[in-house]
């Protein structure tokens, strides 16, 4: 599909030298014009948040302006919808040369989750030349401030392309099972994730397993019950405590036959330190 070609005179006025020259001059005072090319609004709000006193980018001379003709920097968000294609170009051509274009957010950088939909053109740089990219969905106000200060040369760029081409030795990824069957650990982790989601579930898994190992004899249901209950008592967080109990009753009991009395009572009062 044929899209916009940057006219020769704009190209000539926007060489890298020109831009670096401009950046030198606007180091402490620059005007930014926002162009929303069909973003979900998340990036707009974060820009808004970034220009409030909490972040106060006027410390670096950042100023939002109402007209592209006053702008040094175009801050573009969104995957460029068909209908915003024309206004974007109008804004681009109206901005005085040389101009810096910043693409903000996953959509602006590459189209984000919408990258191949029929009504978008997959990112600002498919239409006009872009000088700086600020990924994030949406970017944190701190990311936006970092991005702008990086573009101005105040901060250093952190990321660079990383490519690994030679494989090293693969470390052993599978730990030995505590009860001699890794299916136990597998089920345990699955259940822990169901109970407390993947982030906290992994912590829960570690906590529970540590408590189990501490009992000394994992096949001994009395010992494990005691050890897990003890761990639940000293646990600060009531949610972890109750989930350790649930794991014990549900998964451990599947692998090591338990009597009813070997199960842990889940009544909150017994260990809760109160919320």
């Amino acid at each position, binding site marked *: 599909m044929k899209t916009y070609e940057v006219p020769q005179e704009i190209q000539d006025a926007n060489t890298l030298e020109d831009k670096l020259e401009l950046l030198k001059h606007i180091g402490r005072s620059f005007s930014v014009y926002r162009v929303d090319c069909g973003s979900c609004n998340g990036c707009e709000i974060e820009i808004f948040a970034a220009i409030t006193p909490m972040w106060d980018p006027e410390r670096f001379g950042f100023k939002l302006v109402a007209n592209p003709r006053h702008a040094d920097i175009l801050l573009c968000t969104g995957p460029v919808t068909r209908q915003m294609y024309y206004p974007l170009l109008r804004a681009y051509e109206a901005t005085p040369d040389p101009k810096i274009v910043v693409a903000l957010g996953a959509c602006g950088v590459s189209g984000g989750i919408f990258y191949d939909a029929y009504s978008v053109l997959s990112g600002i740089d498919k239409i006009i030349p872009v000088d700086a990219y600020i990924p994030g969905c949406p970017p944190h106000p701190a990311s936006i401030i970092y991005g702008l200060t990086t573009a101005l040369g105040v901060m250093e760029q952190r990321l660079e392309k990383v490519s690994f081409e030679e494989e090293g030795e693969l470390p052993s990824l599978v730990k030995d099972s505590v009860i001699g069957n890794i299916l136990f650990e597998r089920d345990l982790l699955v259940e822990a994730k169901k109970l*407390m989601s993947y982030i906290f579930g992994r912590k829960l898994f570690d906590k529970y397993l540590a408590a189990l190992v501490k009992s000394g004899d994992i096949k001994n249901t009395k010992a494990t019950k005691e050890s897990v209950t003890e761990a639940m008592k000293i646990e600060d967080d009531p949610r972890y405590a109750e989930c350790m109990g649930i794991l014990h009753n549900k998964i451990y009991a599947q692998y090591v036959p338990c009597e009813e009395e070997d199960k842990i009572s889940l009544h909150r009062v017994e260990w809760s330190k109160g919320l």
Partner: protein
Amino acid sequence: MKCDKFIEALSQKVKVLEVTRQYEDQVTALVELNDLPEAVRFLYYDVGGYLSTMVANDEREINKHYALYYALSIEGGKMFEGDEIEQDEKCFVTVKVLISPDSLTFPSVTPVVPACVWYEREAYDMFGLVAEGLPDKRRLALSDDWPEDLFPLRKDAMDYRHRPDMVDHDKEPEYNFLKPEGSGMVELPLGPLHITSDEPGHFRLFCDGDTIIDADYRLFYQHRGMEKLAENRMNYDQMGYLAERVCGICGYAHAIACIESAEKSVNLEIPARAQAIRIVCLEIERLHSHLLNIGLACEVTGNYNAFMHLFRIREYSMKLAELVTGGRKTYGNVVMGGLRRDMTGKEIKKSLEILQIIEVQVNEVWDAIMDDKRQVKRWTGVGILDKQVARDFSAVGPNVRGSGIKRDTRYDHPYDFFKHIEFEVAVAHGCDVLSREMVRYMELKSSISIIRQCFELMPQTAIIIEPELNVKPENFALAYDEAPRGENVHWVMQGNAQKIYRWRCRAATYNNWPSLRFQFRGNNIADAALIVCSLDPCFSCTERVTVVDVNSKKSKILTNKDLKSFSRTQKDSPLKDIRC
């Protein structure tokens, strides 16, 4: 069972061909094509319903027809005390019709129920279904340069990645705005890129001197083609992330509604803890959205001081969101069957601390704003949304509650954990910007109390269950929730291979736009930005392309009313918002 009563009443009026039940509170009645306007009108005005959504669907693969689903929330007209249906009888009744692919036409419902206007125009845009009798047949959602005969949501029309050629950028097609007749009128364009509005939308204000006589607008600058994308590329696990990105502010509400409609169509009940945390996140979203809107309403009237304070407080709600979901936007949390992130005791404790800060500081700032007579005067009597207009156009959210109609999905159709929560529906009767902001302030307070109640009652269950995905193709259901801007309704029809057949997302603002021109009329142009702001519009939510049509019958009656509230000149305006 629920709904049976209404179906019974409907079958007295028109011939009901088939009744199917999707969920305990959702039934669908198939009627003859010619009975469609009468059936919808009867349910809307006689029984007492509001239009929740209208879905057009290409069902040629299933039954060789196109189908239309008019989903009505049966809750009573709510125009006066007692005009409301019993709490346990409120439900959703959908009127379905089939349209033959040979005729591609259906009788328009808009002349009898004005709320249908955008939906019917969109049906043409996306499917080429023509509403006979629709006063305004301009295209709605697609860009101006879109080929005339290409209807993207037809299953056989095109690949979801197909991008027709753009025209040369100097020759951008002009949009045809509706102009009132008469001389001496000034046409004032606003947008699509305008400093007072965050997002692109083009407004044409038609003015006599400083007074707005009428307005027309073209939105859908942000049509991204999500519905087609979801049907083709996404599976159920990924859909939630797409739904979130309908809107950057009320994204969570969209994700919940979308995922819950998929869950409802397979009759999946999620764990209680997940329900509670879903509500916590929804209310956090309401906190930051309302703080944003009250702040902006101060900003467009020049009260920067209050705006900055509200944004300072808003940062606390963002912190809360970061704590609960791991990002400042409540993104990336919802999956079918539950949630992806639990709250441990540590998070809950910290959240309660932050809530305390927000509550204290919001009260302080709001008192200071209300003490400022200039600010209050600037909001009073501006952008009147007449109660009858709100009723006719099925307005939602603080917009409708500011006009004295007690409509709140959390109260009408309690979803998830709301069955266990007590809260007051905030209603104000002034119909103006002040009332809407009052409603938002009251909701801030009730949100804080709702979050606290959720923490107190937090159930000890798992956070997610394995969804049984033996889905039955062609099953459909709708799900709803109360986003900060009002009711979001999503409608999902199951398809094969872990994909959906059709997803219809109706954002809150979609129902609020059509009545905006009535709110504009008779106001000073300096207030235009304020009026748009008080609607708390979310352009990207609306997501497709539209202009409001002149509804000849209704607008005649209403113009007179509107003219009465003509000309309230604000001499003390601290800021001229509109630069002509």
